[in-house]
């Protein structure tokens, strides 16, 4: 007996027929937030598509979040937004800026940003960020579990370097992604048994950048928003999917991709 679930078995088990109809969705009504270096909402490709832009601000010992037009200090968040928007042009995109000037990006802002996103009730969180510092393992794990229980789908980029990066290694409660040289975002792969289970386009990805520009980028950071985009489409067609069901659906799609290729 085969130990893996075939696509037909998956359809029967989940009562969710995964034909290709969902692929023509636009992500309408699905809320997605990018926790990163901010997003340049005035970029020609993103104009009118970014709903809220928050930035971490220090208030004494606390980190609070305020609506801002501060934009993107590095280009990274704008690059992720461009990828998601290309796949799901009608998604409700928002940004939480935790990297940038004034000591942001110290891990605490990242944690606070994630907590803020979960409290705001976003359906999908794009985390093309992570930390290798062990002191953040427990609070991050706690937050990721809270998100999972709240039905919030977190997609995290795996570390490009050999050591583990958090939260991407908490693969039971989130979806972790690494880069592949594949170019079609529907042709993603699934490495069952690996910590970073999904592979998606992340090599020489052409996307939006600062100053209304475009760049060609390589890194797991850019594989992550491809999967976010795909999930956004999936959730428009199947809005009640739980994080577990979403991962199962991705697994099933990846298996079909594999079957088709072989």
């Amino acid at each position, binding site marked *: 007996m085969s130990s893996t679930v075939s696509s037909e078995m998956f359809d029967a088990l989940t009562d969710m027929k995964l034909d290709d109809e969902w692929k023509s969705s636009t992500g309408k009504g699905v809320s997605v937030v990018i926790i990163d*270096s901010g997003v340049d909402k005035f970029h020609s490709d993103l104009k009118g598509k970014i709903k809220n832009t928050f930035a971490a601000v220090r208030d004494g010992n606390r980190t609070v979040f305020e609506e801002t037009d501060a934009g993107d*200090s*590095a*280009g*990274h968040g704008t690059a992720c937004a461009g990828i998601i928007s290309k796949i799901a042009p009608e998604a409700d995109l928002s940004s939480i800026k935790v*990297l*940038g*000037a*004034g*000591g*942001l*990006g*110290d891990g605490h802002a990242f944690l606070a940003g994630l907590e803020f996103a979960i409290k705001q009730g976003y359906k999908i969180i794009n985390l*093309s*960020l*992570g*930390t*290798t*510092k*062990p002191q953040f393992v427990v609070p991050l794990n706690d937050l990721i579990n809270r998100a999972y229980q709240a039905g919030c789908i977190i997609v995290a*980029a795996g*570390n*490009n*370097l*050999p050591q583990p*990066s958090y939260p991407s290694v908490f693969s039971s409660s989130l979806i972790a992604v690494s*880069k592949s*040289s594949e170019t079609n975002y529907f042709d993603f792969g699934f490495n069952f048994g690996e910590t970073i289970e999904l592979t998606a386009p992340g*090599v*020489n990805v052409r996307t939006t*950048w*600062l*100053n209304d*520009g*475009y*760049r*060609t*980028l*390589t*890194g*797991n*950071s850019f594989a992550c928003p491809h999967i976010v985009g795909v999930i956004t489409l999936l959730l428009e067609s199947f809005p009640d999917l739980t994080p577990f069901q979403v991962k199962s659906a991705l697994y099933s799609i990846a298996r079909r991709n594999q079957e088709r290729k072989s």
Partner: protein
Amino acid sequence: MSEKNEHVIEKNLKALVEIVDVVNAMTLPIVKSIENLLVKSAAVMGSEEASVLVRDGDEGDLRFLSATGEVADQLINLRVPAGKGVAGFVFSSGQPMTISDTGQEASFYAEVDKKTGFSTETLLATPIQYQGNIIGVLEYVNRIGRPPYEPFTPEEMDRAALYADPIATLVNAYEAIVIFKDLGDEILSANSEINFEEIRGWLRGVRGNKNHKEMIDLAILIREVSMQGDAERILCKEILESFLSYSENNLQSKFSHL
């Protein structure tokens, strides 16, 4: 202030300047070693330019410590504000990244390019990590030859991370030494009564002194041995502590004979 106190302060200040001078002498070979590694690794990576940025202050700012290539001299000590550009992102996120611009657009590394007149077209940036902390960024810029340049590959991204490891050890040693230098500079600049001309004259004399030269040589030797690895560092420390203990005992025994 009594004449005796003034003499003590002068003596202490001179000792401090002497330490700062040793520290300065020690940072030079470290920076040179980083530069050598940059030259060799850039050749293997097929890159035209390479540079190392280190943290500058506590707010996430970066500063070019070492660079090779056409505009290396202009890059040294150039600052990149926190979170700005690819280097700023790589430093704050800890994630390597390659970026290329094969089109006709303006350079993406605008601020630094503007200052140096260089044109960055393809870039690989990877974090420099020491014991889990990100202490800088290693960058490779453009390819050898003429544009358009091939983008850096994921395999080269992995290779760059391997080069970042020995550079991290050197940057860490550099930073440890610079702490002393900054402390010394701070103390010296806080004392408005210092006659710097007099100190400079005295320092010139010190530099010509055989003992001072030997002290610098010894410091460099200790640094080199210590940087061979953890075991060497521990051994070096133990030997020096044994010598110190021997010397103290010897001194005490000399006193007892008096």
